[in-house]
C-alpha cells in the first residue's frame, strides 16, 4: 500500500510537470500541438488515473487512521 502510494506520488508529479511544460510550449507554438496529440492524450489519461488512484489510496489511509483513532478512544 505504502509502496503503491509512493509510486503514485511520483507518477502524478512527473506527469504534472510534463503537462506544465506542454502548456508553456503550447503558448509559444500552438501548431506543434503539444497538448492534443495522441501521446499527450495517453499521458493525460495516465495522469488522471494516477491522480484518482492516489486519491483513493489517500482516502483509504485516512479512513484507516480515523478507525485507529476511534478504537483508541
Amino acid at each position, binding site marked *: 500500500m505504502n509502496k503503491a502510494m509512493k509510486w503514485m506520488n511520483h507518477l502524478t508529479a*512527473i506527469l504534472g510537470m510534463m503537462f506544465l511544460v506542454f502548456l508553456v510550449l503550447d503558448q509559444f507554438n500552438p*501548431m506543434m*500541438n503539444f497538448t492534443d*496529440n495522441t501521446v499527450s492524450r495517453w499521458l493525460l489519461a495516465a495522469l488522471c488515473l494516477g491522480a484518482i488512484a492516489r486519491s483513493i489510496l489517500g482516502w483509504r489511509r485516512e479512513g484507516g487512521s480515523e478507525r485507529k483513532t476511534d478504537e483508541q478512544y
Partner: protein
Amino acid sequence: MGKKHPVLRNLLLDAAAAGLALTVFALFHHVLPNKQQSLNLQTARPATAQASAAETKTETKTETETAAAQAADNARAAAETKTETEAEKTFTPEVRMTASTGTGETGRGSPPGRSSSRGGGKSSGRNSGGMGGNSKGGSALEESSETAAAVSDEAVNVPIAEKFADKYTDEVIETENSYSSQDLSITVSEVNEGNITYYVADIYVRDITCFQTALASDTYGSGFRDSIAGMAALKGALLAVNGDYYGNTSEGVVIRNGTIYRANATDCDVCVLYYDGTMKVMPGSSFSVEEAVADGAWQAWTFGPALLGSSGEVLTSFSSPNRIISANPRTAIGYYEPGHYCLVVVDGRGESAGITLPQLSQLFHELGCSAAYNLDGGNSSIMVWGDEVINNPSGGGRESSDALLIAEVRSDE
C-alpha cells in the same frame, strides 16, 4: 539533503524524470528522422495525368487509416468519370501533363539567372494606413461550414489557358524580377511600407502541376528538414517559399502533389488546392478526405488561420493566442481565381517589424485575393527566387520540412 528535505528531494527526482521523458518525447516526435507512410491514395487527378504519374506508392495502410482509405477509394471511383470530364473542361493542357512528370516531382525549368540584387520591382506600395484592418470581418470561417473562395462557376469553368493567355509567352523571358513561359508567369516585387517589408510573388500557372510542393530529403515523415533553397534547387524551382512545416506535428491534413499522406484534420483551418486550379480554405472540422479525393485535391496544408472570410472580406478577429496574432514574420498564400495565385513573405523581428494577422488579412484584401491562408512564419519565413534567398529571414532562417514551389513541368522541346 535527502533526509532533511524529503519533499525537495522527491521534487528534484521527479523533475529529472519528467525532463528525461520530455527529451525522449521530443526526440522521437520531432528530432530523429522517422519515415512515415502515406495513406496510399491517389487523388482524383485527371486520367491522363494519372496515367503518367511517376509516383508508385506501395506503402501499406495502417489499421487506423484503412477505413478512411476504403471510403476514399469508393469516393474516387464514383467521382472518376465526373473528374475526368471536369478536368478536361477546366484544364486544357492535360496532354502536356502526360508528357510531363505528372506528379510534379521534377521541375525542369531553369532558375532565372539573375544578378545578386534583390527581387527588384520595388514599389512604394500602398499607404501604410491601409493595413489597419478596420473593417469588420469576424470569424466568418466559423459560421460557414466550408469557405470556398468566392469564385463563380463561370469563372472556374473558363479554361485557364484562355483566361490568362496574355500572361504567358511562347519563349521563356526572364528579367531580374519576372519570369514567363508557355505555362508560367511570375513577378516578384519587394514592397516597403512604413516599417514593414514584404515580398509578393504574383503567379499565373497554366498547368496546376507547376504549383508543387517539396518534402525535405524527398521523404515524408517527422524529423526531416532541409533548407528552402536546397529543396528549390533539387526540384529546379523558379520560386519557393516555406510551407506549413507538417513535420512538426503528427496530425493535420497533408496532401502533396496529389498524394494523401495524412488525412486526420485538426481544429486548424485547412487549405486545399485542387487540380482544377481552385483553392478552398475550410475549418478542419469540415474537411473530408472523401470529398477532397472526389474533388481532386492536388495540395493541402494545415496551418492557418484563414486570412479572409468566405466572400473575401477582411478578418479582424482570430482565435489564435495573442502571441501568434502579434507582429511576426509571415508566409502566406493568396488565391485570386483558378490559375492565379500569390505568395507573400513578410520580414520581421528586425528592420522590418513583421505583420499582425489582421494586417495580413487587410494586405490580402488589398491585393484583391478572394481567399488567403497563413503558413508557417517566424524564422521559417523564407522566399527563394531562382537560387537566392531574397528576403531577410529572422534569425537567419531555419530549415523546414516542406516548401511550396513554382516550377516548370513541361518536358520540352
